């Protein structure tokens, strides 16, 4: 029998339901992997093996009683530490929230537990989800299990901000994990680690109980090792939530049942603006592979134009920090989390000391940018202008989707880079999300699936962007790619 930790969501769900193994056996196997990898990969901020076992026992008991199991019955998962989990430390990878135990459960995590999933632990991430390499966590860098094939031993970035999720998936520490994507935070880590992740349409998954970064962009989604697993988990996570005013009041489709890699009659748009000068050769080649695969699946390939693409990144780096600067104002040392109260400090001093100590440099940088662009005298030049450009970017997509059903593009401009390689150059770091950010600004569903390895032996991802609410179209195109890419590489175990 295959090792249990090699199994994905569908296989575990079906195996538990069919009695091939118990949920507790699965949980134990993953718990062991989590514990064994913690020191080397630092993918989890805390492990919660008892929670995984508890949920598994409940599933096994349910099965013993002959009851139907949930969509995620018996599947242990990793929970990005941006989701509030009842009485379990929730930090957003910040010192600010170290030790914070919410007395509430986020809507998305609750839905997953209700669907039969269990929690292996809280996954590391970039602090407040701000970062593309998982180097901004207060709890240390997450290390990718992947190594370059150059014989060197450089530690590589798992991507970010959902780097704990991607690293854990690639290292078989969990069969699936939650992610959140504000400007590529699900897709880029998935691409860096040879895993699969989908950011659904903005509003599909409730933001209630998810520590906010940029409210108009934040969207939760599943990360796993196959398109089907993503479809299953997204079904469990999505759905209208009256507690989130921006939640979509739409029924959740049965995406898994409607999965099909047949692209006959579908048009796939190739945005010419993404074919930038100096695009990494391997990335360019994998994109061409993707085009060929979708053609092979029956799709018609059309060139499309997204003329405002080059403004997407600057627009994102105005809007996201602006919202963040306001969203993070609540961390003030008054009610919960860190309080730094120097001797004789007044209220202002306490704010300053608390926020200086509680936020890392990248978070501070973004708060400063956001405060600046919202300031009197600059607001119109930056924020208002950015909102206008955002509308134009959304319009670009709307026009493009008159000609095609989905868009195919690279997920990231490069494969994983080494830890420390980009930390001194924020702009270079921000460029990682150049292909991911436009779909975020437009609120569109987009996913990354592994396409193959580059010449260094590192995974590359392909991105499928779909129309609003058309997760099915995205998943199906993703499946068509997955079936042809036949991606089976996995990092050699060194930890």
């Amino acid at each position, binding site marked *: 029998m295959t090792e249990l930790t090699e199994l994905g969501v569908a296989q575990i769900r079906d195996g538990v339901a069919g009695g091939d193994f118990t949920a507790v056996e699965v949980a134990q196997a993953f718990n062991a992997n989590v514990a064994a990898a913690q020191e080397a990969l630092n993918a989890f901020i805390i492990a919660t093996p008892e929670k995984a076992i508890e949920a598994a026992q409940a599933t096994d008991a349910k099965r013993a009683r002959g009851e139907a199991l949930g969509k995620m019955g018996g599947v242990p998962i990793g929970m990005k530490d941006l989701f509030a989990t009842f009485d379990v430390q929730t930090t957003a990878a910040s010192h600010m929230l170290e030790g914070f135990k919410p007395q*509430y459960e986020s809507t998305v995590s609750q839905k997953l537990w209700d669907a039969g999933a269990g929690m292996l632990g809280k996954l590391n991430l970039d602090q407040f989800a701000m970062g593309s390499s998982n180097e901004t966590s207060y709890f240390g860098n997450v290390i990718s299990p992947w190594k370059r094939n150059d014989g060197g031993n450089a530690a590589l970035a798992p991507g970010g901000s959902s780097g704990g999720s991607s690293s854990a998936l690639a290292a078989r520490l969990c069969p699936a994990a939650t992610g959140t994507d504000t400007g590529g935070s699900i897709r880029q880590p998935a691409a860096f680690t040879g895993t699969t992740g989908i950011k659904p349409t903005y509003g599909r998954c409730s933001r209630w109980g998810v520590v906010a970064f940029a409210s108009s962009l934040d969207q939760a989604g599943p990360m796993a090792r196959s398109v089907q697993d993503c479809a299953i988990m997204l079904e469990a996570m999505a759905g209208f939530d009256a507690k989130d005013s921006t939640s979509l009041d739409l029924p959740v489709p049965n995406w898994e049942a409607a999965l099909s890699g047949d692209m006959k009659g579908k048009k796939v748009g190739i945005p010419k603006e993404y074919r930038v000068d100096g695009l990494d050769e391997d990335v360019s080649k994998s994109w061409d592979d993707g085009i060929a695969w979708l053609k092979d699946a029956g799709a018609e390939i059309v060139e499309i134009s997204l003329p405002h693409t080059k403004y997407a990144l600057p627009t994102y780096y105005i809007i996201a920090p602006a919202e963040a600067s306001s969203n993070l*104002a609540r961390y*003030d040392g008054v*009610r919960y989390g860190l309080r730094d109260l120097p001797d004789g400090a007044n209220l202002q001093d306490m704010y300053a000391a608390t926020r200086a100590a509680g936020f890392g440099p990248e978070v501070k940088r973004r708060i400063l940018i956001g405060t600046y662009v*919202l300031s009197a005298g600059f607001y119109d030049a930056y924020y208002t202008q950015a909102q206008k450009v955002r509308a134009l970017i959304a319009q670009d997509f709307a026009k493009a989707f008159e000609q095609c059903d989905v868009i195919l593009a690279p997920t990231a401009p490069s494969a994983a880079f080494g830890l420390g390689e980009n930390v001194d150059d924020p702009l270079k770091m921000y460029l990682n999300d150049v292909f991911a950010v436009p779909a975020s600004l437009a609120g569109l569903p987009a996913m990354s699936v592994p396409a193959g390895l580059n010449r260094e032996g590192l995974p590359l991802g392909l991105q499928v962007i779909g129309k609003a609410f058309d997760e099915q179209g995205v998943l199906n195109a993703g499946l068509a790619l997955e079936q042809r890419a036949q991606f089976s590489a996995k990092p050699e175990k060194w930890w």
Partner: protein
Amino acid sequence: MSTYRIQGATGDWEVVIGLEVHAQVTSNSKLFSGSATAFGAEPNSQVSLIDAAMPGMLPVPNRECIRQAVRTGMAIEAQINKWSRFDRKNYFYADLPQGYQISQLYHPIVGEGSLTIDADEKAGIPADKVIGIERIHVEQDAGKLMHDQHPTMSYVDLNRSGVALMEIVSRPDMASPAEAGAYLSKLRTILRYVGSCDGNMDQGSMRADVNVSVRRPGEELGTRTETKNVNSVRFVMQAIEHEASRQVDVLEAGGKIVQETRLFDPTTGSTRSMRSKEDAHDYRYFPDPDLLPLELDDAFLEECRASLPELPDAKRARYVGELGLSAYNAAVLTADVDTFAWFEALLAETASAQGKQPAEVAKQAANWLISEFFGALNKQGKSLEDSPVSHEQAAELLALVGKGTISGSIAKQVLETMFETGDNAGVIVEREGLKQESDTGAIEAKVDEILAANADKVAQYREGKVALFGFFVGQTMKAMAGKGNPQVVNEILKAKLG
């Protein structure tokens, strides 16, 4: 035009006043959370995860608060914006958990409207003076700091955090403290009629920021100051008087008015500087990305409009036009919700007790309520709310007068006894034998006695000294211990005296 002027050393000055009124919306729960809003609850007993701004919490607009704001806008005949939006006003303070207040800067829910203040010749308020209202928007209230609970720390009570407020912004259309006072009173009356705010200024559910500037008559607007959080009509008028003459003093001494925020001190009736424009916050307003724009559909607006009660001006006109009340009585009875509610209940019961139309007994009820009943309440230091006599009881008393069972003067005596004992009027009249004598035979007999005993005066009367009629009435009533029906006594006396 108001003729209010401040006489400075160098000539006359006009005052220009605008008010920003914060009115707490009457609703069971807060603007964006399900927490209760009751006044005076234990500190931090009405605080949800949202009000405390826990990580990941999101606001969801409370429909009732929106409805109340729309109804209020309709009551001042304002434009209702079917599309409005919430903005964040960012600043740090310990009573502001989110680090921002959710408000509406750019697109308020209610646009331009107006209200007419009541004319008052004595106070120099002309008839039909209209005060423009620029906008009404809804926003969250902040919590409360308590500085007296600990020697070195301040405590925070978040019960009020997130409670819905309407900010009602007037045009600078008021030209005297009296006009500002009249505006605030009228606004309060309208809010209480509509039921969108209880108007309890002493509990802070209504408070005003007072913008004042002065200028030479007819000249351009001067620089204004804003005096924050003034919480009674009287204080608003005091603050304006003080602030306007302070500004005149500064200007006449060659100084300049600084645009600044000031505080009113009720113990001295004066204002003092709080912060100047230079240290004003940069609030970094931007649309709240947690909330969708607020879009109101026609059905909702229709429901809001249909639910509006008769408003003060309309009610007063109806009292004069349909019920035949004097303008003064109509003004008194419509000035407050409690008053008109009591009057209308009394009127309905009085009419039905006497089998008449309300219009037929309205004058009687209004006169009695204002001159007799309010006087009696006053004497006891009570208001309508805690009146020991109910309107049912009062209607019974009025019916006894209306049917001629007792006279008006006996009614006063009965009312006093009702206040003392709480008994019903009928019981008292019966017990104390106060029933009016309307039997013509009995009255004729008494009249005959009086006329016989005063033959000299009868002669004088018949010679033309008609003023003596009152003497005969008085003697007859006295002989009947005040219980003779005055109308019958009059008629019989007239007939007998010829």
